[in-house]
Every structure is written in C-alpha cells, then in structure tokens.
C-alpha cells in the first residue's frame, strides 16, 4: 500500500508504563483480544442470552440459523440500474464459489450466524464498481418463503470509484445474509439496504466493511418490517483519512424484533466516523435493539467519531434497547462522542399540528415523517433520499385516507 508521493507519517504508538497503567489506556485489555474472527462454525458457542452479544435477541425465534443448513436457493436476485435499465459501463456482475475471488476477503465471520451463513451458502454474487457511475445500482432480493436460504453479496469499489448501490429486500423469507463491502482508495461510495419484508420474515444479516484510504462510504440501513431482523455490521479502515457515515432507520410494529449492531473500528490515523440510527416503535411487544460499538485503537490518533441513537415510542408497550459502547485506546483524538435516547411524542408538537386542523393520527404521522426526514435529508444523494422517503411514506400511508395520500405523494 506504500504511496511514494506522500511523505510517510510518523505514528507514535504509546508504550505502557507499568507504574501508571491508566496513563496509557492502550495497555489495558482490549476487546479485540478476545473477539473471535473465524470461518469455522465450531469456533463459536451456541448463542445464549447470557452472552453479551445475544442478550437482547429472542434467540429461540432464530435458532434455525445456528447450525449449517442446506439453502433452498429460491431467493430471487435481480440486479439493474435503479430505473430498471441494464447495468451501466463500469459495473461488473459475477457469481463465484464462496471462498473464491473476492468473496471472503473482507475480514472474517464474527459470530455463529455469520459463520453458519458462510458454510451453508455455495456462491457469492460479486458486484465490482469502477469509475463514475451516475445512477444508483439496484439489487433486488426477493424472499422465497419459509425455506431457509443463504445469500452472499460482495460489493467491491475500485480506487477513485464514485457509485451508489441500493439493496432492497421484500417478500417472506428465512434468510441468512452475508455482505462484504470493500472500497478502494479515494473512492466515494454509498450503499443502502432496505428491508421491507413480509410480517413473517426472518432475516439474519452480517455486513463486513472495509473503507479504503481517503475514501468515503455512506452506509444506510432502513428496516421497515419483518418478524425478526438482526443485522450486525463490522467495519475497519484501510488507511488514513477514511470517512464512514452509517445511517439507520427502523420502524417496529407490534411483536417484531428489529436489531442493529454497528461495530466501528478506528485502526488508522485521522479517520472520521458517524453512526446515526433512528427508530420508531409502535405497539405492544415491538422491540428494537441498537448496539453501537466504537473502538479506537492505539494506531488511530486524530480519530473523530460520534454515534447517536434516537427512539420514538409511538404507543405504549414497546421496548427500545439502546446501548452505545466506546472503547478508546488512544488519548490523542479529536472526539469520541455518543448520545442515546428513548422518548415519546412531544405533546406540544402534536397540539400545535392538531390546532391547525390536523387530526391526531395524521399529526403523529407528520411528526414521524419529520423524525426520519431529517436523517434522510442528510444523505445528500437525491435519487437515494427520494427513494427512501417514498419507502417511508409507503410505510406511513397504511390506512391513509385518499386526500392525505394525495398530499404525501405530491410532497
């Protein structure tokens, strides 16, 4: 990776002073020391709620994903540009056997279900992106019902590539999914994953992400439905000046469990990360979990990281678990902040809208739309943000009267 045109920067790695262990936190035990990374299922214990990373998950509802299975192969995958046209120049789509080519190159599985996915699947879909691709690429994943299936997708962006990828999930499914994302030097990539599953769908996902030197990646996850959706995302940087922006939106209905776990690793100097997840929970037994881990390693001075999770509880009886974890092993950083909240509707906001003739149910929808809209606006890629607002409006428009649907559509 040596680049002869830029001067080599000196990285000072702190050395522990046994007389003053807290002066150099790097000398303290790091979670990395005992985090398992392996392709072998047997390297992981059976998930159990006593284990930290499974403590919020109703594991009895997803135990079919804990042992290697024979995939049905019935999941339908379609890849095109977002307007439905054939793939543009600079995009290469291929299928490889798992473990060959680019598959399995971005880190390794990191929990039992991701190792099961790796060992159950047979092939990987590989999407290679080169140059400037004006329109977003759309990968449609249509679930095939109750038969267990595995899907593995690799998104590999070349150096200096500019591209956007949207992955949409719908239908009913029992899907174990592995996603590998690797971006080249100075590339600017966005990847957006939307889950609009049927109410009975189960989806266990694992994203392994590598952000290139000087590259920016905007990674968005929008989970709008599914009986249980659990997505774990682990990331690291490939060099200095990487910029990672992770954005999440979730909408949880009664009885659903929607879980997102982000693991941001700062392993190079002067990288920036932002993780912002927002969720709305509606009704009894709606359960969301967000666990945001950020690890700043001794090798990452000048790190700028921030993570935030906000939950809006729409009706009583919902549970939102929100847990930010920061592990900072380098004192020489710009920032490492976090914020987390679970709240109800603001009565004053609702009253204001109602006093203008807007019925309570519509007022609530407007507030929820605004709650997410703020986040979607930040995406800054009109094709993507419009698409997302459409998806959110579709979710909110359930049971809408004709006049209001009209207003939402015109918007």
């Amino acid at each position, binding site marked *: 990776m040596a680049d002869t045109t830029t001067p080599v920067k000196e990285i000072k790695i702190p050395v522990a002073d046994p007389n003053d262990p807290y002066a150099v936190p790097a000398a303290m035990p790091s979670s990395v020391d005992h985090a398992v990374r392996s392709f072998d299922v047997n390297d992981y214990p059976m998930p159990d709620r006593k284990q930290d990373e499974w403590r919020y998950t109703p594991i009895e509802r997803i135990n079919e994903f804990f042992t290697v299975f024979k995939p049905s192969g019935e999941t339908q995958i379609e890849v095109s540009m977002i307007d439905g046209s054939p793939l543009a120049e600079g995009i290469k789509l291929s299928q490889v056997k798992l473990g060959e080519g680019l598959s399995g190159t971005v880190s390794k599985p990191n929990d039992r279900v991701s190792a099961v996915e790796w060992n159950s699947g047979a092939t990987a879909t590989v999407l290679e992106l080169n140059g400037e691709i004006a329109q977003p690429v759309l990968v449609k994943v249509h679930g095939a019902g109750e038969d267990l299936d595995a899907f593995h997708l690799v998104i590999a962006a070349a150096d200096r590539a500019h591209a956007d990828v949207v992955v949409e999930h719908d239908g009913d499914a029992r899907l174990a999914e592995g996603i590998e994302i690797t971006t080249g030097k100075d590339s600017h990539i966005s990847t957006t994953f939307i889950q609009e599953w049927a109410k009975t769908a189960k989806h266990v996902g694992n994203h392994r992400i590598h952000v290139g030197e000087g590259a920016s990646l905007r990674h968005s996850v929008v989970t709008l439905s599914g009986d249980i959706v659990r997505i774990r995302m682990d990331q690291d940087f490939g060099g200095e000046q990487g910029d990672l922006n992770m954005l999440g939106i979730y909408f949880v209905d009664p009885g659903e469990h929607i879980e997102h776990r982000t693991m941001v690793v700062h392993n190079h100097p002067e990288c920036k990360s932002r993780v912002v997840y927002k969720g709305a929970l509606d009704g009894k037994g709606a359960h969301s979990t967000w666990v945001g881990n950020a690890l700043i390693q001794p090798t990452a001075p000048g790190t700028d990281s921030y993570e935030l999770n906000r939950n809006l509880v729409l009706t009583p009886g919902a549970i939102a678990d929100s847990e930010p974890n920061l592990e900072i092993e380098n004192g020489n950083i710009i920032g490492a902040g976090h914020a987390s909240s679970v709240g109800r509707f603001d009565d004053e906001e609702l009253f204001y809208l*109602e*006093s203008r003739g807007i019925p309570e149910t519509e007022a609530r929808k407007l507030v929820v739309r605004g709650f997410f809209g703020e986040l979607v606006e930040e995406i800054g890629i009109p094709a993507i943000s419009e698409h997302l607002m459409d998806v959110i409006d579709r979710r909110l428009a359930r049971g809408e009267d004709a006049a209001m649907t009209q207003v939402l559509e*015109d918007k």
Partner: protein
Amino acid sequence: MSTLEIKDLHVHVETKEGTKEILKGASLTVHSGETHAIMGPNGSGKSTLAYTLAGHPKYVVDSGEALLDGQDILKMTPDERAKAGLFLAMQYPVEVPGVSMTNFLRTAKTEIDGEAPGIRQWAKDLSAAMKRLKMDPKFASRSVNEGFSGGEKKRAEVLQLELLKPKFAILDETDSGLDVDALRIVSEGVNRAKEANQFGILMVTHYTRILKYIKPDIVHVFADGHFVKTGGPELADELEENGYDAYLPEGADSESALA
C-alpha cells in the same frame, strides 16, 4: 355571520402543588367582524382562556360552554375546533423538526377545507401571502418554526391565519417579542386577513402598543380568572394611564408594564 359565546367558563390545571383553578366564570360573546382586546395583568388567566378554547390538553374544563354558532367546541378535539373555524395564534409557536412549512401548511389547508387545494393556485396563494408578510421564500422549505427568530415565528402564525381563513382568531400575545417594524408587518397581516374574511378577533395582550395597529372595537379587562370590566377603545387609554392596579386583588404586587 358567526357568533362565539363563552359562558361561565371554569377551568383548572393540575400542578405539583395540587389543583389550581384559573378561570373562575369567564363569559364573553364575540361576533364576526368584531375585534375584542382582552387585557389584564400577568397571571390573570388570559392565555389559559386562549388555550382552553383551542383545546390544549393541559387545561381541564370544570363547567361552562363555548358555543361557536351554537355548537359547544369544548366537546371537540383540537382539530375539530380548527375545522369548526377557530384559530389560535400562539405566543410561543412550537418547532416541529423535519416537517417542512410547505407540507405542514398544505396538510392543514387540506384538513380544514376537506379537500386538497389545487397545486397551482395554492403555490400562488402561498408565495403571495409570504411576500406580503416580507417572509423569505426559503422559509417554505424549512422545518415548521425551527430556527425561526421570534419575529419570524409570529409572521408564520399570521401567514397561517391568512391561509386557513378561520371564523374566529385568537391572538395570544402576538405582539410580544416584536420590534416596531415586525409589529407593523404582523399587524398589517392581521388587518388584511380580517378585511378579507371578516372573522372575529380575540386579542389577548398585556400591552397597549399593538392596539395602535389593530384597532379594537371592545376592550375587556381580565383579572383573577374572569372579565371584570368592558368598555370601548377608551378603556385601553385608561389602562395605559393607570395600569392594572385597580383590578388586582388587595395586597398583590402590580407588575404593570404598559408600553
């Protein structure tokens, strides 16, 4: 021609210290086209009257009625009251993050009228109304009241008043926090809207200065939860002269700050 009749209204709020009665038998009748100024010392219950009429959940009605053309609005939800023709311009308009003014206004207009306004006509009306209130067109795309200055929020309230065309407008301390220019622009907006739609106005204010711009037909003094005196515009001049001392309970500290 519409009539708003408030009859012997008793209202309390729940506080940490217990139940507190604020309105103690307030009665008032307002007709279309009339402008009533409701003046009184701080804490007399003027704003409570305004918010109770609009249906704020904090205020509990113990007895009394508020009939809009014979229909008791106190039995309606806040949105039903708005649809019946009531509008409250708030002293502190609420920020609603992520909801654009355009979307909010159109949604409100759709609900009040019972049908979505034609896009072209609506866009024209909106931009013309904003121009008259000297509002930056950028406001339309910003979130409702978010990051607006005090004066901008009040203009946005008057903008809604012009667009939603109510039968009765309650202006709660609309003059507070406005400089002379903003006060003039806002007052002109109210006068223009009244000219166009002939609604009745209940103008709640502590100061007399807004009365120079929005001329009241009737002036009321409100103290200790009810109306204590009613007169013509000359009553405002008298208040300007003497303050509210005469209307305060024995031993109360006057905080008169007539402008």
